[in-house]
């Protein structure tokens, strides 16, 4: 393809689109309105993996490099609503789609995957192919396929079957084309006019089912949920409650909760975490991966299995260790299984998730700790408090050689400096109180031969060491409110706005009244009407959706 045809193609497409929207006169609005799409989110790596496992069975290999994700307002789930797919990303999904299709339709698996039998295994069979495409299409695209979508897959399938002399080779191509379809790689949310209020829109039933299943299971809707969407039953509160209860009771709720906490706790940097081997000889990739898993095991055990108090996450001495971690924590490993439950002693400085080496090492430098990074992350992750960008023209002349003494001296300079103090006074004290842990999270009491002072002043509270930070978070009202905000934003895929405030406050009060139980919180949110709220996308002027009654919101986030 040459530059010439490319440019002309763009031009023509633009014209066609312009014509199409121009032609949408008000008289035609009902049809146009039905096509309103209110959200587009790229599916994440874990969502992809869970979907493939749920649809085709857990044995299918998913080996690829996924596109990098991006965090917006603290969540990758919000970043996923901003991202598209690059050329090399598409290349990866294409190769992955081919390898999955090949495996699903391999001789050993095809009997399970294809329930009909072709009339001639060496040729095309439209009926059997239609059955296959319709069934898997709905599971993958999270809605029934249109006639045109089915037809194009039947054509590929027939062509492939004829060329290869193999019915299943044709199906392989059809399945690959489903696995690279934009409606699979992105969650497309659609809205339809609400029959109860004809001037308003509501999320259609399949989009509702998808929001539920990605929040609760981190995966595609199953057949039961799709059936409830198809019949429209999902629009009733009674059916919604029933489905939410069923989904939370399913073992797949673990997957959903894990994905949520991995996102909220920002556990995505471990695959690439680097430490200087001369300074931290105990660090390697297995320590990094184990440290991540430890944080998830702690969270899942407390919050999902025991349905415990969320605040205990900061103070509980109950943790899990494996052999690689035991070496870093300097604890003898006395178990034959890969992981063992371990309770840190009463007088240990380790208590709660902030003293897991995962948190401590991820938010540090390759060769040192970083009180500022740790402080920023405590505020951001657990209290939803963002820290602004540092100013550009900082005068560092007051900062002197810091190879001597502790890091506190260097940071005190920042706290004195006018341009820096606004933020550093907020961020650094929390990090300085965690300074008994080095850049890998190992315990220490001295730095460069000087004893480390772990006392800190926060507004009018004085805290001492890691346990002080833990107690502080336990009693901070922003902490439960932040969890509530994150569950909601994560599920809906949009930031929260001023007008969500009353809803979020009510949810937070109910969460507190429940004894800070995570599953109760998720149930409340997933069965509330606000969870299915839609925000009209910004459109170009005069597009049909501009007439929609849905308000366009301006962000009021801090």
């Amino acid at each position, binding site marked *: 393809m040459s530059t010439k045809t490319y440019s002309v193609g763009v031009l023509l497409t633009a014209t066609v689109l312009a014509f199409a929207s121009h032609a949408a006169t008000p008289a035609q609005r009902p049809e146009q309105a039905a096509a309103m799409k209110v959200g587009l989110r790229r599916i994440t790596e874990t969502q992809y993996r869970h979907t493939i496992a749920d649809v085709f069975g857990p044995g299918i290999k998913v080996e690829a490099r996924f596109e990098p994700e991006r965090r917006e307002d603290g969540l990758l789930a919000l970043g996923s609503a901003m991202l598209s797919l690059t050329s*090399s990303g598409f290349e990866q999904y294409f190769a992955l789609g081919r390898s999955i299709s090949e495996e699903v339709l391999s001789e050993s698996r095809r009997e399970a995957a294809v329930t009909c039998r072709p009339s001639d295994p060496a040729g095309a069979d439209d009926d059997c192919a239609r059955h296959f495409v319709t069934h898997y299409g709905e599971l993958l695209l999270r809605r029934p396929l249109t006639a045109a979508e089915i037809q194009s897959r039947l054509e590929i399938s027939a062509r492939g079957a004829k060329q290869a002399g193999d019915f299943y080779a044709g199906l392989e191509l059809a399945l690959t084309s489903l696995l690279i379809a934009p409606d699979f790689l992105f969650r497309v949310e659609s809205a339809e006019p609400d029959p109860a209020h004809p001037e308003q829109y509501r999320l259609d039933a399949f989009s509702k089912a998808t929001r539920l299943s990605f929040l609760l299971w981190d995966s595609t809707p199953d057949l039961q949920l799709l059936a409830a969407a198809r019949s429209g039953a999902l629009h009733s509160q009674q059916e919604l409650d029933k489905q939410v209860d069923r989904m939370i009771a399913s073992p797949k709720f673990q997957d959903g909760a894990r994905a949520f906490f991995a996102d909220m706790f920002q556990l995505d940097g471990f695959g690439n975490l680097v430490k*200087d081997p001369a300074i931290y000889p105990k660090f390697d990739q297995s320590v990094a991966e184990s440290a991540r898993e430890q944080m998830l095991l702690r969270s899942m055990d407390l919050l999902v299995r025991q349905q415990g108090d969320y605040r205990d996450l900061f103070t509980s001495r109950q943790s899990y260790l494996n052999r690689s971690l035991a070496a870093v924590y300097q604890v003898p490993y006395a178990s034959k299984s890969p992981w063992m439950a371990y309770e840190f002693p009463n007088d240990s400085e380790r208590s709660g998730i902030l003293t897991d080496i995962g948190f401590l090492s991820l938010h540090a430098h390759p060769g040192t700790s970083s009180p500022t990074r740790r402080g920023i992350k405590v505020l951001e992750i657990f209290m939803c408090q963002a820290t602004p960008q540092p100013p550009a023209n900082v005068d560092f002349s007051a900062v002197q050689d810091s190879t001597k003494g502790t890091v506190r001296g260097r940071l005190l300079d920042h706290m004195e400096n006018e341009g820096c103090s606004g933020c550093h006074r907020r961020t650094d004290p929390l990090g300085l109180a965690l300074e008994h842990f080095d850049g890998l999270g190992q315990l220490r009491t001295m730095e460069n031969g000087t004893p480390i002072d772990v006392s800190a002043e926060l507004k009018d509270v004085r805290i001492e060491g890691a346990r002080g930070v833990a107690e502080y978070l336990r009693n901070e009202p922003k902490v439960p409110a932040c969890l509530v905000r994150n569950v909601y934003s994560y599920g809906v895929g949009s930031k929260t706005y001023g007008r969500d405030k009353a809803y979020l406050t009510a949810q937070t009060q109910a969460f507190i009244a429940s004894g800070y139980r995570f599953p109760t919180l998720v149930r409340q949110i997933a069965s509330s009407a606000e969870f299915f709220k839609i925000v009209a996308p910004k459109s170009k002027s005069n597009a049909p959706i501009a007439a929609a009654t849905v308000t366009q919101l301006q962000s009021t986030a801090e």
Partner: protein
Amino acid sequence: MKLRCDRRSVLKGMLGGSAVYVGLPMLDVFLNTNGTAFANGAPLPVRFGTYFWGLGLTDTPAGGTRWVPTKVGPGYDLMPELEALAAVKEKVSVFSGFRAIGDGRANLVHWTGHASILSGVAPATATRFDAASFDTKVADAIGTSTRFKSIDIDASVSRQPVSYSTRTGATFASPDSTPLALYTRLFGPDFQDPNSDDWKPNPAIMLRQSVLSAVTEQRRELMKGLGRDDQLKMDQYFSSVRDMENQLAVQLQKPEKREACVLPQAPKDPARISSVDVVNSNTKVMAKLLAMGLACNQSRVFTFVHTSGASETYLPGQSKIYHQITHDEPTDARLGYQPETSKLANEVMKGLGTFLAELDAIKEGEGTLLDNAIVLAFSDTGYAKIHAIENIPMFLAGRAGGRHKAGQHIAGKGAPVTRVSLTAMQLAGAPVGEFGVGSMKTSNPIGEVIA
């Protein structure tokens, strides 16, 4: 395929493209050079790439410059931090004194500088660019006849893969960030040896094409009712599908012979350590693979990241990272600069020296691959201690097939960085006559370096 860049295609590009890239003043330059070069079927195309490193070079307000040559014009003096470029000095032009201009927008630290160079506008937020990076425009112009429109590489061993190449300003390229990943992409199972004598089209590729067409057929249906931002995302998705279609189409054509193309050995990935010695050796291995990928005509465009903006690299065994040192280290009163910072800058520049040496090591026709390439190398800041976006070091390396009058030092005297970007685009043969926004808008390339 030949004569891709005639007057007609420029005019059509104008109609289809955005106003920022309208290019009349450029026509003469580009027809005289590129047009004739392609018209006679010259086999050695110009390759274009960007090379990025973090934290600038040392040039202090106290006058202690370690990189800006005293002499302007040809035959510049090789300053201490440029010593790594000694071997290729005659093929490298140095640009000093160019700056990013925010027009009232804040200097977003370790972001505004390179965002301005690449997108022509100081961005509003530190996670996005406000416009596409210009390498994608060059790729659209010169990169469509090869298997890959562009190869994106990250040698930095960072926490997240780093790339500053973007078509939307929001989604950045996902680079190959290990030698093995790069090798697999270039020379893995889908590689076709251009020098092989028994080339046959692979029928499976035609079937793959049909898989893609099922997706593109549904484009209109999908676009219907999408909001503006979502349309942009889908546009990029479909442009990625188109790149894949192009890749398959290229693979169905018998490749032209490439004398310099020799299939390399699969490399081993190094341990994941971000110290500067490891990053430099990563750079060397990846540059060698890239150079061979270019020689084998797998792509004509690349983007390469040595270290990221607020670079986390460090000297092995040292507890402080480079970024921290640039801020904390006091200026030595006697020397007039920060000695430790300058030492790290020297190490980082060895990466660029190695990179260019690898391109220069491949013989092509009368010269080398570097002679047929133009590489814009640049950083995010000038003087990193104060996050300066004035005097950001920029280099143009390679002779661009003779179009670049290389080996000069150009003093920008406060001119916008976009002038260097525009020059790079034109040397690469992209039909672009104007670049940038506001005070950084320019239609004035640096004529002294254009033959």
